[in-house]
């Protein structure tokens, strides 16, 4: 594994470059096809409202996929991720317009561990609300 960030160059508190990811209805249809998750709450407004949701919501796994990009773009090697977990705390509501929703993700090094690994704690919000909790990744650095 050849991550581009060196273990010796990071400290607890080192911030990873934050990113914003946009998600529209078209994004969700594309993700449904690629992932095989065709639950209608992710594309059918009528169905979503019938089951008590405010509108169509993004797949939790879509949000999880975006959030780890803050880590994999930082290290360069996505294969350096050793461990990754999240809790889905609030849905990302995606309105039926050109703007859709955005997911803002930041991360910082929370601990330096053995074997050149660090724990990164991620924060993901959409419309001002935290959408992931306990969002942590362990990644091996160079």
């Amino acid at each position, binding site marked *: *594994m*050849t991550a581009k960030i060196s273990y010796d160059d990071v400290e607890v508190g080192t911030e990873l470059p934050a990113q914003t*990811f946009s998600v529209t209805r078209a*994004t969700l249809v*594309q*993700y449904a*096809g*690629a*992932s*095989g*998750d065709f639950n209608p709450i992710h594309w059918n407004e009528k169905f979503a409202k019938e089951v008590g949701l405010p509108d169509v919501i993004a797949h*939790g*796994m*879509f949000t*999880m*996929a*975006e959030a*780890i*990009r803050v880590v*994999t*773009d930082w290290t*360069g*090697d*996505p*294969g350096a*991720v*050793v*461990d*990754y*977990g*999240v*809790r*889905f705390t609030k849905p990302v509501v995606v309105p039926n317009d050109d703007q859709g929703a955005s997911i803002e993700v930041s991360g910082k090094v929370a601990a330096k561990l053995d074997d050149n690994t660090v724990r990164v704690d991620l924060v993901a919000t959409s419309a001002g609300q935290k959408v992931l909790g*306990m969002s942590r990744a362990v990644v091996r650095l160079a």
Partner: protein
Amino acid sequence: MALDQSFVGRSYPPTDPYEVGREKIREFAEAVGDTNPAYTDPEAAKALGHSDVIAPPTFVFSITFKAAGQVVQDPQLGLDYSRVVHGDQKFAYTRPVRAGDRLTVTSTIEAIKSMAGNDILDIRGEVHDEAGEHVVTAWTKLVARAAEEG
């Protein structure tokens, strides 16, 4: 209705192998807008020390969740899937999933809890390659929300 605690620890038979294709990885990477060349360019993946293109970290969920269907749809367990939401998700990787892998999943029910009328089910999916080597373990927490009163 509370789920039967006697299902805790139950393992389901390994799934038939899922063959990971380069183009499926590309399709997934495009769907999440991730342009990392390790997902699409075998040379770029090799430069990072991988024998072929690798999959984004969450790609394997499609495979483990399908395998978890054995648990979710087990009529003896009796989970009301129409009320299920995804609570937590965690992965622990021995190595990244890569093109050419033939992966099998063994699903085990790790825990069943009942809280405020909600049924909470923890499923572990162990993913192995064709050689029987461990690739990744996925833990999925599903919450079946309590049915509304009356």
